């Protein structure tokens, strides 16, 4: 089943079709113009029918990774779009990692658009919940889905006809919300703290040289100092070997290191650069000409929001990527499956914890960004043993 999938990428000069089978929605023209991608928009307009003539589908926005992505649904009105939003993603879309934060119990009462303000009246379930991120994300989904339909420039959320006060932490819902407000970053990027250094380690330099020879540490970082890079490399090694994941060069890790072989790619692929994401080991392999260049510890999607396995291609490199639904920055983002990307994050636990993205520590994110090229194959594998 074909689904027109569009992911918003502020700062990237053209809209991206994440995979060959996915096409760019025509109604995205409105979005493009808003983000000053006019030149590109006009180029598309030359080859695609105008948005107004294709009034049989509406765009509905779900989440994938840390970003909003759209799918087409039959319909033409704001009411059609909200009804489709509340219905949630299909099983196929869910398998692609798409999800919704709108509670299943939420029902639509009415949508009316007057003077560019869409008054969307839903039942109370839509506004209930303790998780601030979930509340913000569902509001972003709603505002994005409704904006532009029937001339709606802003969205006033109503619950059974009433004004909503303070139910969405940090967002003023007692007046209309614009998509522009949600898309405008208003927090600085948070830089993750490097791991705290541990005590001196006997034979550190030798271990570092071994880690570097095996592809866990960059040769330049074999400097005899037990810093963040060494800890990252040790964590990568422990994950690769299936040891306890504490980032400390203890006796067990030292012993394993003494007899370790250089990791090999799990799959054979084309020459040039590519990456494998190993969900079971929670590492990514940066591969060049079928040789592992670097093993990187990552945290992929949590059990409730897994990273979908499959073959993908890097389609953009975005040094600073704003997450509209979660209102936070993703640094050194390398998206390869619509909203799913490699990116730096402040929390990279040694287990799967993300919304579907491949989180990295500060110690590797910039390196991976530099290593990546647009078009680079990325294979997400469930098992690597």
């Amino acid at each position, binding site marked *: 089943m074909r689904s027109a999938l569009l992911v918003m990428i502020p700062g990237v000069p053209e809209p991206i079709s994440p995979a060959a089978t996915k096409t760019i929605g025509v109604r995205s023209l409105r979005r493009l113009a808003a983000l000053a991608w006019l030149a590109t928009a006009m180029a598309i307009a030359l080859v695609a029918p105008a948005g107004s003539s294709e009034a049989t589908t509406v765009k509905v926005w779900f989440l994938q990774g840390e970003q909003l992505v759209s799918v087409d649904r039959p319909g033409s009105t704001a009411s059609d779009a909200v009804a489709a939003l509340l219905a949630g993603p299909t099983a196929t879309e869910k398998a692609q990692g798409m999800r919704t934060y709108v509670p299943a119990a939420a029902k639509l009462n009415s949508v009316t658009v007057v003077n560019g303000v869409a008054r969307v009246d839903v039942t109370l379930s839509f506004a209930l919940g303790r998780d601030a991120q979930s509340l913000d994300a569902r509001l972003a989904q709603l505002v994005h889905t409704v904006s532009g339909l029937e001339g709606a420039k802003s969205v006033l959320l109503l619950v059974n006809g009433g004004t909503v006060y303070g139910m969405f932490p*940090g967002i*003023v819902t007692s007046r209309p919300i614009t998509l522009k407000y949600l898309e405008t970053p208003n927090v600085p990027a948070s830089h993750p703290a490097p791991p705290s250094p541990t005590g001196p380690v006997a034979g550190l330099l030798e271990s570092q040289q071994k880690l570097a020879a095996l592809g866990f540490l960059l040769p330049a970082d074999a400097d005899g100092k037990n810093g963040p890079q060494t800890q990252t490399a040790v964590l990568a090694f422990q994950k690769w070997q299936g040891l306890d994941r504490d980032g400390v060069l203890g006796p067990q890790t030292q012993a394993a290191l003494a007899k370790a072989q250089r990791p090999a790619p799990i799959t054979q692929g084309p020459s040039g650069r590519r990456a494998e994401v190993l969900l079971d080991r929670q590492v990514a392999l940066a591969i060049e000409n079928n040789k592992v260049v670097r093993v990187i510890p990552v945290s992929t999607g949590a059990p409730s929001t897994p990273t979908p396995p499959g073959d993908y291609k890097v389609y953009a490199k975005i040094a600073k990527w704003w997450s509209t639904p979660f209102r*936070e920055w993703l640094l050194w983002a390398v998206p390869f499956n619509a909203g799913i990307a490699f990116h730096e994050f402040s929390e990279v636990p040694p287990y799967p914890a993300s919304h579907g993205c491949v989180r990295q520590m500060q110690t590797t994110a910039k390196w991976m960004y530099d290593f990546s090229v647009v078009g680079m194959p990325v294979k997400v594998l469930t098992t690597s043993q």
Partner: protein
Amino acid sequence: MRRLATIASLALLALSVPASAADPITTITPDQLTVGVSLPSDGFEVGVAKGDQVTYAQGFDIDLAREIAKQLGLTHVAFVQSPFGRLFSSGTKPWDVAIAQITITDQRRRTADFTQPYMTVDQGVLAAQTVKPVPRTLAGLRSLRLCALSKSTGVDAAKTVIAPTKPVRIIGNVPTLMLNLQTGRCQAVVYDAPSLGTLKARTPDRYGPFVGVIKTGEQYGIAVPKGSQVLTAVDAALGTLIADGTIQRLQKKWLTTNLAKLPTLR
């Protein structure tokens, strides 16, 4: 210690004034406690309102109102949305009691009557993300653009304790106050510490650090219109809820941050 003593004396009071079920109080709507609120305030009262009729609400204040009604033997509780200042201004009101983190002050006693206090709080100072480095002293805060909620005790604390070089910006409601803090138009907000703490805990990325507290030791009370006949019964009901630990339980349920860990600004 002072707090413990207060609670002990309240317990005695509660014993000496039994629940008034035998002598039902007269409320605006029979068998209903009508409660004035000022939505929203994180942790305390958030919800949905059609005009001034609150159709859904949750939070510490809401649970407290329901517990009071239970103590008074009233079956129903209704909430009425109001601007904050009107909750304790003079004149007749469409509610029996007002619960909205209302600090008892001498000035407010001139226009409204108050129950005994049920919570002692300080003012908090929450900085915007854009403020760097974050000042850690009252003197350091003086050069910032401070904001506070209209008619709140935060205005007084900002003006008299911090005494900033730029005028304190007065903002009409809490959402706008916090929005201005997010965008950096307000460099720091002075507001009830438990509210700021709850807000910061729920969405930590949107604000700068919780700089500290200004020890005001102010006390929240339930306000009733001047001369209201319900005061005695409501005060007794509140006394029972303080003595039996209900207030403490509700604080734990709704107010998420440990304020004791915050530094006191000097």
